[in-house]
């Protein structure tokens, strides 16, 4: 991570309509709390000292998933130039959780903010070779222009927030 990448990441996120909040492991819970609209679902977070609060349902049924207002997952890395987060979906359910809720909260370690696509593809390729089944480069909320005007939130979330863990 460089301070420059982080600054670029923040401004790119802003351009694609994504709010970015910075926090640390210690401040995580209090940072997350106001971002959660009930009902919230989540997938376990892989960061030391960071976990999902009780109020977040980490084992939702199909119906609970579809009814969720907020979905919290980790994102493997960020891409500063584009304001993208890479969602690495696996058995823990990152993919459905990040996709079905109205709002997706993606938690990214500051260390994992990469400057550009070149760097991102080096990581992606290594991950795929090591068995990552899916990596979604997600940039902003889902969107469509098919119904005559741009609408945010087509099949996927209409809102995305990035929580940046600074002490990583």
């Amino acid at each position, binding site marked *: 991570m460089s301070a420059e990448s982080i600054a670029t990441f923040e401004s790119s996120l802003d351009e694609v309509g994504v709010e970015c909040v910075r926090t640390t492991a210690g401040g995580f819970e209090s940072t997350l709390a106001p971002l959660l609209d009930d009902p919230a679902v989540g997938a376990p977070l892989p960061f030391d000292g960071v976990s999902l609060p009780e109020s977040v349902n980490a084992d939702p049924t199909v119906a609970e998933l579809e009814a969720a207002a907020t979905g919290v997952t980790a994102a493997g890395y960020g891409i500063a130039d*584009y304001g993208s987060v890479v969602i690495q979906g696996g058995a823990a359910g990152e993919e459905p959780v990040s996709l079905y809720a109205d709002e997706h909260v993606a938690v990214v370690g500051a260390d994992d903010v990469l400057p550009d696509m070149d760097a991102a593809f080096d990581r992606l390729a290594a991950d795929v070779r090591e068995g990552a089944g899916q990596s979604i480069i997600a940039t902003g909320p889902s969107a469509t222009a098919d119904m005559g005007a741009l609408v945010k939130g087509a099949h996927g979330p209409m809102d995305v927030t990035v929580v940046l863990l600074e002490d990583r």
Partner: protein
Amino acid sequence: MSAENRRQKAEHIRNLLETEGDSVQQNTRVFNEGRYESTAKLDDYERLKDEARAIKEDAIERLPELVDEVTEAVEANGGTVYLADDAADANRYITEVVDGRTAVKSKSMTSEEIEVNEALEADGADVWETDLAEFVLQIADEAPSHIVAPAIHKSREEIADLFEEVFDPEDPPETAEELTRFAREHLGEKIRDADVGMTGANFVTADTGSLALVTSEGNARKCVQATDTHVAVAGVEKVIPSVEDLQPFVELIGRSGTGQDITSYVSLFTPPTDSPTFGDEALESGDGRDFHLVLIDNGRMEMRDDDQLRETLYCIRCSACANSCANFQHVGGHAFGGETYSGGIATGWEAGVHGEDSAAEFNDLCTGCSRCVNQCPVKIDIPWINTVVRDRINRGKDGDLDFLVEGLTPDEDPGGVDLQKRLFGNFDTLAKLGSAFAPLSNWVAGAGPARSVLERTLGVDSRRELPEFERESLVDWFADRGSRVDPDAARERVALYPDAYTNYVRTERGKAAVRVLEALDVHVDVPAAGESGRAPLSQGMVATARSNAEGVYDALAPAVAADRDVVVIEPSDLAMFHREYERLLPTEEYEALRGNSYEVMEYVYGLLENGADLGALPGGDGERVAYHSHCQQRTLDLEPYTTAVLDDAGFDVATSDVECCGMAGSFGYKSEYYDLSVDVGETLADQFTTDETADRTVVASGTSCLEQLDALLTRRPAHPVRLLDARRDRR
């Protein structure tokens, strides 16, 4: 084409202009402008395009090997690869896999190509398109009109009416937001209940067996996640060597298509994936997922062996060529025809996968303007593919010789060529005759009875004014007059290329060019070189174009051999020298001519940069000018020279930014396309009749642009070189 067919075609186009034109125009222009903005932000746009092209060239070259590699990789992951020969083969396999279950699909043109929905439905399966645009088309029972935004031709109101009619909801959705929510909910149920998810693949990586899917809605992700069988359908050409190779495409594809820096989702799946799937109530482990990659040949391997069509396989189906096409902008994909694909590159695809008949009709809508060439992220020469397919279609026809036209058109192409094509393809001969018999020929051509014969037999629209031939050609005028600059004392010695229009019709711009060059101390010669081959080429008459090119080269060879520059007035002819001659002349000749030829205003710019005296030319004195460059001139990046020279000379220049003037050349004369040509031209006319431009002197570089502007404006336009001619007002 018979008069009746022409009439029907004209009617069809008029109808589309009325019903779909506005929606298509609005959308494609937003995409197109977005593309200019988004690609301008890239520091290394050209490098990325070169990289993308190189990856595709290499991949297609090594395709059989890569197909083996990807098969191994997918099988090692636990999936299956099926290599389908054609549509029927693919459908048979997919039908077996789906086995009557419910399938949800994300958008895939390849699956449209094989019409898999019909096959599955015939087998009793339910199939739902989940891409919102495809869903609209599915319930409207219509074909896509655009490869990226298939329902681009439908307005919000039409979609609202359609939903109301089909679903009869209590509270009918109206706004774009409501319509989206409604469709999302309706399709959400289908996705939850489906057993099979079908997707396409924008790219398939051979090394890891991964699929890259470029989407914005998120439906492809849902189709894969919610179901436990995934069938991905892709043309074999989608295979690229490695995951790293995706990078330039990821940066280019969204920008090129819809003008987004990147789409919301670029999904890289390496199936079968372990993401949880939907059980009846709970999320269940995705470990048991079944994955089938169906790689479809359907003519592609033959395209690969075809030196002319091979490039089509580099296409990443981004739609930039369609969005930047003025004709497409005005009338959309349904006018372009074809069974599946539409727009510029569709000719190559249709000819390759469905055969030439499918390509024949809409291939006509490409005028060869070349605006798409620089917009294509993999640098495909789309106009050339159109020309080649046109040539093949011409040759495929039985020769029904009409000896009268045959006599008038001593060309190299076989007798089967359509008479109308033949007429326009032999413009040189026509112009020579027209000039020899002028003004009588002009009078005859303009008279009512002759016009209606022309319209009936050759489809020359009687609403379009015909060119008026000059009695004295430019070459003759110059031969009489001689050069006015002593060759030994001259700053430069050049040959001015007399294109057929300048030579016989618009001689005034040729004379102006001679005088302007001479004022700058240049010794000019005007050799009697014939038509460049542009006219036959645009009718797909490649053999005739080649013999024209050889003739032109012979006439210009002495100048080129003496290392003199060739100055060209007509941009479409300069483009011939710089682009198409590569395919028509021996390499050495092509390179020599290319290296020595310049557009006239570019040349003037160069002279001034190298010390020629601007003061020798009349000053603009703040004269307000509205300038329309020319398609091919812009593709070659030559527009800035004209504006710079005019600026320096003291003119106040406003420029147009429409893609094209509406092609009043052979295209606009054809009765089947006249209405479209005028409709496209109006966009330019509108830019030159605003408060800011209405009183400006109009100048345009290309002949067809001049003709079009002449027809649509009350001011008479001229070539910009005439602004620099001291005798401008005393013709």
